[in-house]
């Protein structure tokens, strides 16, 4: 039993361990990074998705920027008003929140509506496919359908639908805008969550050029501009541009569009109902674009629920308040 060797090894190893331990202990004290405790609290209040929608590198970055005074308190669109309020409490300041947004697909050309120009054999990624002559779809503006947005969504809110168009789960979507930035065609966009009607086409062509490549593409006929009761639409480079401030989400454009290029996000639409106060003045018949009201002058008018789309224009013009919108709980008629 070589005791000398054993003692030597014990001392060396033990001594080394002790020295290393002391060095580490010393450095953990001297090199401690002081974090403002507000930063830790703010970081805890933030959703933690690290999506980058605020423009800072992750939630850590935003927390640091808020404490440094570089970022506004309501910079997190994902957390919304609740988080902004909490951050305001931590920082001891007042705050107004940004309106939360949701991502939507502004293209309706799936594999049933929009054919391909050629058979594509290659990496099944939208950005890579677009490099090859703009992608396999006949419409060069439309959604490629390989699901790049599915992979970049930080919360997994998108999945590929049967029709080769991405389906966005509005409950999961946090409105960070990552998919919008990554889509090579620009067929994803953010709209305010309260907005119900939007145009689902980005084609800059018109007429036959569009009809040849997509059954539901906007042909720039301009009918929507004419029928909009508040003049919220105007044609620009072969696409109607919607003024979100003016639009009341009445839904007339959705039904009048010959190619069904608009989408209505409302989970349900009400129907008009004429109550006995009606004096038969027929003002409502004049404004109804769907011929859903009929009746003799001076007599109680009847509503045809099959034709009514719930746009509410009749309600606005009725002088005796004889029309109500019923059904579709939660959908309220906006008045300008």
């Amino acid at each position, binding site marked *: 039993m070589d005791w000398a*060797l054993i003692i*030597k*090894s014990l001392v*060396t*190893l033990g001594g*080394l*361990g002790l020295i*290393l331990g002391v*060095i*580490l202990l010393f*450095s*953990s004290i001297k*090199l*401690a*990074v002081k974090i403002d405790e507000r930063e830790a609290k703010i970081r805890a209040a933030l959703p933690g998705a690290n999506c980058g929608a605020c423009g800072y*590198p992750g939630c850590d970055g935003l927390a640091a920027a808020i404490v440094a005074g570089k970022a506004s308190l309501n910079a997190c669109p994902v957390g919304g008003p609740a988080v902004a309020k909490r951050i305001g409490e931590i920082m001891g300041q007042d705050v107004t929140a940004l309106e939360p947004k949701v991502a939507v697909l502004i293209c309706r050309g799936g594999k049933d509506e929009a054919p391909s120009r050629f058979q594509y054999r290659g*990496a*099944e*990624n939208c950005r*890579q496919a677009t490099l090859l002559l703009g992608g396999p779809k006949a419409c060069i503006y439309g959604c490629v359908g*390989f699901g790049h947005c599915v*992979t970049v969504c930080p919360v997994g809110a998108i999945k590929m639908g049967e029709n080769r168009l991405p389906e966005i789960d509005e409950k999961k979507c946090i409105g960070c805008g990552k998919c919008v930035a990554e889509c090579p065609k620009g067929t994803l966009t953010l709209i305010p969550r309260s907005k119900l009607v939007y145009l689902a086409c980005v084609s800059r062509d018109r007429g036959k050029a569009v009809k040849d490549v997509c059954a539901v593409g906007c042909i720039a006929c301009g009918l929507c501009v004419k029928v909009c009761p508040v003049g919220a639409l105007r044609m620009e480079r072969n696409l109607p541009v919607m003024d979100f401030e003016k639009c009341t989400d009445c839904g007339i454009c959705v039904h009048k569009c010959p190619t069904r290029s608009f989408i209505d996000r409302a989970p349900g639409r009400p129907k008009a109902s004429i109550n006995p106060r009606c004096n038969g003045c027929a003002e409502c018949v004049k404004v109804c674009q769907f011929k859903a009201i009929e009746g003799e002058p001076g007599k109680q008018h009847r509503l045809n629920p099959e034709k009514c789309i719930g746009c509410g224009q009749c309600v606005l013009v009725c002088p005796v308040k004889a029309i109500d919108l019923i059904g579709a709980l939660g959908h309220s008629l906006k008045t300008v």
Partner: protein
Amino acid sequence: MNSAKIFLAAFLVNNIILMRFIGLCPFFGVSTAVSTSIGMSAAVLFVMLLASWVSYVLYHALLLPLGLVFLRTAVFILVIAALVQFVEMFLKKYVKNLYSAMGIYLPLITTNCAILAVTFFNINYKFNLLQATLFALGTAAGFALAIILFAAIRERLEDAPISPAFKGYPIAFIGAALVSLAFMGFTALFGIS
């Protein structure tokens, strides 16, 4: 041995990942994206150099004279573990951008066989301090080359139509086999004697 040869041999001919099979766990774990691979390579370079120097000094100044060579396994790994923790704290305080770029990989490096392997090779090949430095640099460069090349390949494999049984690790391994095959071409150059 010629200094340039030591570097080149460590870098290409005896590439630590593709020819020696050392450092495979981080190789397959971190190489899913080029950005993370670059961060990992930087961390490895840093720690590998420091670990080589410290272990070299400890071995020649302490273990060898005291006849405690058999303690080298324990001593080296302890040094590496302590070094990594120290480097993490140091970077966090003084070099914040570097920390945010590669800081998260530092704890992973403790169990990275490549670092410990280099410390052992320095002894087995009987290098002096300069040669050990070149060897560590070459190895780290070889690690970086292999992992970044492989990450670029894996990024493309993400979208390729691969049969379900091969998705993930199997196709990655086969990809590594092909890259390794390419690197075997370098063996015609020379090896470390």
